């Protein structure tokens, strides 16, 4: 440090002294380590569950029932369909047409047609291909016309059309005749769970739980404990403005909370990245969301830290007010998770933190609505069971519900990046106003 004798260097020295004092004080408290230890344990436990889910294999489901043999003639439904034989008549099968045709292995007709839909975001329209030739019927030769191959009338033969309906806000499916999708459940599940976990864990685990509980336990007492210990006068009966005391106390807390969150987020990013599905060793793409989670959690502990510190300063029962606010935030967090477009959600801190994560997730994985629609399509798209008339699975694909419940489209009506900027600005404005009000109260506070 230089020996400059300006006012500002004086401010620096006081800031460093008071912040450093606060850090050391927190470090010596057992409660600090308890709270942070519980946080680490909870995060590790959830990560463990996630890794376990990611290493589990999901049983394949024959979504379009073409591996079944309804009529018991030995030829699976899929094979019969290619030869235009009746899947319900044991006396009508490809072997009768040509005795050299032997029954296929039914497992060939499971997971044979994965999702390969391309989203055209300008028209909100997607086109999926028929991978397994359900509608081409190559073995039947010229028996099918081009217009039959394009029964959904989109001008493309043997495809699935997916269109966003503005009327009911859902994806609508229309497939060409006979085109069934039979995706790989295992692949779908792991991808959906991977995304659902990052978004859900970021919003609930980090932004909500760490974001509220860390400041609740560690920041509420920043001023209050000094009052109760009768040691506050060591800080305020000094040539230092009380606003500075507030800010430097908060900085001391943040000097512990911010690296703590950073370490936990990095740890989670590593574990989830290595456990991610796909061929690559590590999913580097996720880091954008993890950065958003880190930023949102940091802003949460800054805002809640300032609020709870001021609550504690104002009254002996500030902790009670902090808990009441915490409950309010919890309720609005649930509302934000359920439907962020409800205006009431904006009357919370948590909303602005959560949509930072949503904004980053939208930037990194813009095709997630399609992924959800795909998972749902298996049970809701009536045209998919065109071949057999039945649906192989009674519900959406495994993982769809999890992804659907944590994924939220951005409520503010702006692009993800603008949404991100607005949220950060709102949260910073909250910190400034809380500290401004807090120091005004603190200045008029008698320290008996």
């Amino acid at each position, binding site marked *: *440090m230089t*020996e400059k004798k300006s*006012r500002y260097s*004086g*401010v620096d*020295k*006081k800031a*460093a*002294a*008071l912040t*450093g*004092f606060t850090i*050391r*004080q927190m470090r*010596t408290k057992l409660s600090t380590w308890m709270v942070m230890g519980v946080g680490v344990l909870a995060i590790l436990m959830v990560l463990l569950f996630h890794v376990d889910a990611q290493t589990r294999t999901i049983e394949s489901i024959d979504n379009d029932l073409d591996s079944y043999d309804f009529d018991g003639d030995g030829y699976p439904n899929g094979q019969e369909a290619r030869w235009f034989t009746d899947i319900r008549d044991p006396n009508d099968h490809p072997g009768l047409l040509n005795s050299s045709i032997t029954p296929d292995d039914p497992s060939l007709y499971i997971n044979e047609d994965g999702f390969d839909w391309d989203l055209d975001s300008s028209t909100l329209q997607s086109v999926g291909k028929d991978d397994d030739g359900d509608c081409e019927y190559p073995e039947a030769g010229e028996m099918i016309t081009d217009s039959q191959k394009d029964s959904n009338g989109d001008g493309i033969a043997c495809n699935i059309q997916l269109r966003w309906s503005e009327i009911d806000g859902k994806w609508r499916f229309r497939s060409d005749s006979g085109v069934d999708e039979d995706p790989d459940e295992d692949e779908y599940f792991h991808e959906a769970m991977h995304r659902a976990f990052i978004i859900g864990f970021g919003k609930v685990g980090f932004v909500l739980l760490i974001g509220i509980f860390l400041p609740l336990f560690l920041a509420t007492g920043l001023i209050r404990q000094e009052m109760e*210990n*009768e*040691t506050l*006068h*060591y*800080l*305020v*009966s*000094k*040539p*230092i*403005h*009380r*606003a*500075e005391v507030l*800010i430097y106390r908060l900085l001391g807390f943040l000097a512990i909370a911010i690296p703590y969150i950073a370490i936990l987020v990095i740890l989670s990013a590593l574990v989830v990245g290595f456990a991610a599905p796909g061929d690559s060793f590590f999913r580097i793409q996720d880091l954008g969301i993890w950065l958003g989670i880190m930023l949102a959690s940091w802003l949460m502990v800054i805002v809640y830290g300032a609020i709870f510190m001021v609550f504690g300063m104002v009254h002996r029962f500030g902790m009670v007010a902090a808990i009441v606010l915490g409950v309010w935030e919890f309720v609005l967090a649930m509302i934000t998770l359920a439907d962020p477009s409800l205006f009431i959600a904006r009357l919370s801190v948590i909303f602005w933190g959560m949509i930072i994560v949503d904004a980053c997730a939208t930037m990194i994985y813009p095709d997630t609505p399609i992924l959800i629609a795909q998972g749902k399509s298996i049970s809701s798209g009536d045209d998919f069971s065109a071949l057999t008339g039945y649906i192989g699975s009674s519900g959406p694909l495994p993982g769809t519900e999890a992804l659907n419940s944590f994924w939220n489209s951005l409520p503010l009506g702006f692009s993800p990046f603008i949404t991100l900027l607005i949220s950060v600005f709102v949260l910073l404005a909250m910190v*400034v106003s809380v*500290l*401004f009000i807090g*120091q005004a109260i603190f200045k*008029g506070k*008698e*320290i*008996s």
Partner: protein
Amino acid sequence: MIPDLSQQGGAEPVAQADTPAILLDHVSKWYGQVVGLNDVSIAISGGVTGVLGMNGAGKSTLFKLLCGRIKPNQGTLRLFGVDPWESTSPFSKIGYVSESERLHDWMTGLEFVSTFARLHGLSREEAVEQSERVIEFVGLTDVMNKRIGKYSKGMRQRIKIAHALVNDPQLIILDEPLQGCDPLARTTIMNVIRELGAQGRTVLVSSHILQEIERITEQIMILHRGRLLALGNLHAIRSMLDEHPHSIRLTCDNPRGIAHALVENDLVDGLVFESDESLVIRTHHLGDMHAQLPAVIHESGVRVTGIDNPDDNLESILQYLTGGNS
């Protein structure tokens, strides 16, 4: 948030030479129905002033007002010409030892003093240097690297005093600094306070024990139920008391022998034989009586082993000053 730099201490000239260190003008402070300080006006500059009063007399209220911890309900209060409630700038010239025994037990003595020294704007190195100086001044150098939690009561009081001295203050406020100390620590602290007064600083020391204050200073201020009862030289206050009957107890081998010599003295109002070995003299003129006693004793030839004033304590003084209604 940008701190209000106008309230940073040390940068602006706070006091002119003729501004009193402490100035109270009709200051009152009450807590709900309870009066803490009632219409007190004083001006103090330089030297050691003992603030005497029973528990609840308003000593701590006065000190908390001076340290900007609480705000007066009425009147004006100035430290070096500045209102300590409005501005924290006077605190760069003030050292405050609180009555509270609570400290940051997890810090070492040196950490404690130097950390808070840095709140005066000292750099880390300056703070350690100054802290070592004041810790030596209060005689704690050998334990300065031990945790405060392990300190004795006397050491805790002394480290609080060191903390208050680290910014080289012009005004030092000590709230009951001798409370709970053993005789040795008491003597050390008294010497420290006397030394500070001798250095020309303004020192306020509170106590509820008259003899303690008497050993430190002659300048006293008596508070009673929030009111300023007396301010001035202890002897002047004592002579005021001469108007009231006073007692002197002599411990001797022949009380009646010495009584014989005293009966004829005009200053004596009455004599009481408490026991075979003690005689209580009642007088209105305590000072004069004490002046004449040695001669009387010498003439009587009685062996006197002790002279004391059984009612020479704060309670008695307060009783006299308040007309027996204390």
